[in-house]
């Protein structure tokens, strides 16, 4: 089966002379939820920007649904929805107008759009705020609008950068429930987060990024092994493995 997201030999950053990302190789399969974890400045957001096509790779290749952005820009973008770390809303649109715009941009059938937007407004407790402008929403609510827009599009890949920032406990629960639901329907989720316990509970595989390189990837057992932990009888947690991998400057080296 073809992976939804393929990243091969990705080297990139803001300046070709000082790359931030070094030779990243990973895949995200259909129906998989993959967690991208790393310290501040490890290169998580830069990696996501390369996947989105907001930054150009110095070397390597990124494919979504088998297409590169250069070959098939529309198909590439149609296949992914993005939730940024800081909510990026249009100040002049209300919550429901944002949903309508997304529905139009992703070519969601109108009747389906109506149904999905009503249910999303309801599930994220945003129905009373449907006619509110971005400036009248709290940070958490703005983040909910971003998430609702991504979920409305129902793409094959969700790229989510720090989704839990500012969300209240109900919002976090709604988001996680929806992510489980979409993965069951065959969509993939590529999510970066610092909330390791949640990532551990919900993701099937993990990518540990440190100083722009992948120092471990795979299932929890693979990551624990890369961290030099003998994982027997559920002893190793993602948090412990992560700490060992990055706290001493990543002495275990990059993972290939």
């Amino acid at each position, binding site marked *: 089966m073809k992976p939804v997201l393929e990243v091969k030999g990705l080297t990139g950053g803001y300046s070709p002379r000082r790359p931030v990302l070094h030779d990243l190789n990973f895949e995200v399969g259909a129906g998989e939820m993959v967690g991208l974890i790393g310290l501040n400045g490890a290169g998580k957001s830069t990696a996501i920007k390369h996947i989105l096509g907001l930054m150009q790779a110095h070397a390597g290749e990124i494919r979504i649904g088998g297409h590169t952005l250069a070959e098939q820009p*529309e198909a590439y*973008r149609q296949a992914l929805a993005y939730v940024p770390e800081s909510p*990026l809303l*249009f*100040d*002049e649109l209300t919550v429901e107008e944002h949903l309508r715009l997304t529905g*139009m941009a*992703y070519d969601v059938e109108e009747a389906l*759009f109506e149904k999905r937007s009503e249910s999303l407004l309801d599930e994220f407790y945003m129905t009373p705020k449907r006619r509110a402008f971005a400036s009248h929403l709290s940070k958490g609510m703005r983040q909910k609008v971003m998430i609702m827009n991504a979920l409305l599009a129902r793409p094959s890949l969700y790229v989510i950068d720090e989704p839990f920032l500012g969300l209240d406990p109900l919002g976090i629960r709604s988001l996680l429930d929806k992510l489980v639901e979409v993965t069951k329907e065959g969509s993939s989720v590529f999510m970066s987060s610092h909330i390791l316990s949640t990532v551990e509970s919900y993701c099937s595989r993990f990518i540990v990024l440190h100083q722009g390189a992948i120092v471990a990837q795979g299932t929890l057992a693979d990551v624990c092994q890369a961290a030099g932990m003998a994982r027997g009888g559920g002893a190793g947690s993602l948090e412990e493995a992560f700490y060992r991998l990055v706290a001493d400057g990543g002495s275990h080296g990059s993972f290939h």
Partner: protein
Amino acid sequence: MDRSIESLWRKRAGDFWRGSIPYFRDMTQSGLPGVVIMLLLAGLAGYAVLLRNMPASFPFTLVGVIALTPVLCWSPLRTWLREADIVFLVPREAEMPAYLRRSFRYNGLACAALVLLVCAVYMPLYLAGPATTPVLVIVIFALLLKLMNLFAAWRERQLVGRAGRRAIRLLRWASTAIAAGALLQTELWKTLLYLVVIGGLFWLLYSRQSRYPLPWLTLIAEEQVTRRRYMAFFSAFADVPTETAAVRSRRYLSWLARFVSYGKRSAFTYLYAHTLIRTELGGIVMRLTGLGMFSGMLSAYSGLLQGWGSAAVCLLFVWLSGIQLGSLAQSHKHSVWRLVYPLPEQTRHDAVLRVDRIAALICAVLIWLPHGILLPRKGDLVPALIALALSLLYVLVLRQARMKRLLKFDPEDD
């Protein structure tokens, strides 16, 4: 280093104007000052014609009230405050009166100058009509009203309740309009009595409302709106840094955006229609169209230069509204969603052109309307028709080509 609060005010004011110089240069190069001078000359000529052939039924007081009320009431305050000041300046709140005194002086003088200018323009009209009060007294009273409004506007900024603030502002504008009417039409003692009574009532009203000693959030928001207005204006001539857009719901217009059909091809049209209607750009275009209609009414009413002057006024405002609308092409140029949405860049270009064309057409028709109604009555049908034809030519042909060039040679585009 001088760390006094006054020097901070001076530095911020200096920084703002120094930062604006390049944009003023771009504006000058666009030819706008020339057009404004022509407009002023045309206006003056029309005004002279109107003064010479003043009809007995001319609504002197009404025109005076319409001209004076906005400049008497509108009392902006540049404080240069920004969000970060909540952290850095709030601890120095005790020193802020000295800081704000500078703002009051800065805006107070500018507002007084504006009142004097409008008085200077209106007084010849007043003298041509049944002038009952000496001009000097009118000017002194106008300045007194301005002073009262400056104080009242500050009190409104201090009010805790937003709804109360709006209602009181509306009341202040209405009371000032009545005061201006009284000043121009009735005996002086009656106006004076009215001012004393209304001043006392407002004093009572303000003193009964709860208020902040220093309304930080209101002042920061007001400063942000003013900056955005400058940037929205400059964006018609240059690529300006994007500030978050000031948004008004404008329900009386936003229903128009509902006519954009649901579909992938219309996604950007839907976005740009809302951008135009709800941001400061829409506000500027609406005010410009309103001013164009008002100038059109005066010039067509006076039959300026056998109608040809009136037609020129119409074309100038159609051109000005078009220039301002051009800055729509700058909107969302740096938005992430432009690159993330699965929409070809061409659909964004098409949307800008479509929204721009419809808006420019509506503005042109509205600006032309007073000329179209009033000029034929004076027997000047040909200038009215020529003005319409040239306006349509500009909107449908020349502007479209300019907008396409603007979008096509955009170095930011992929």
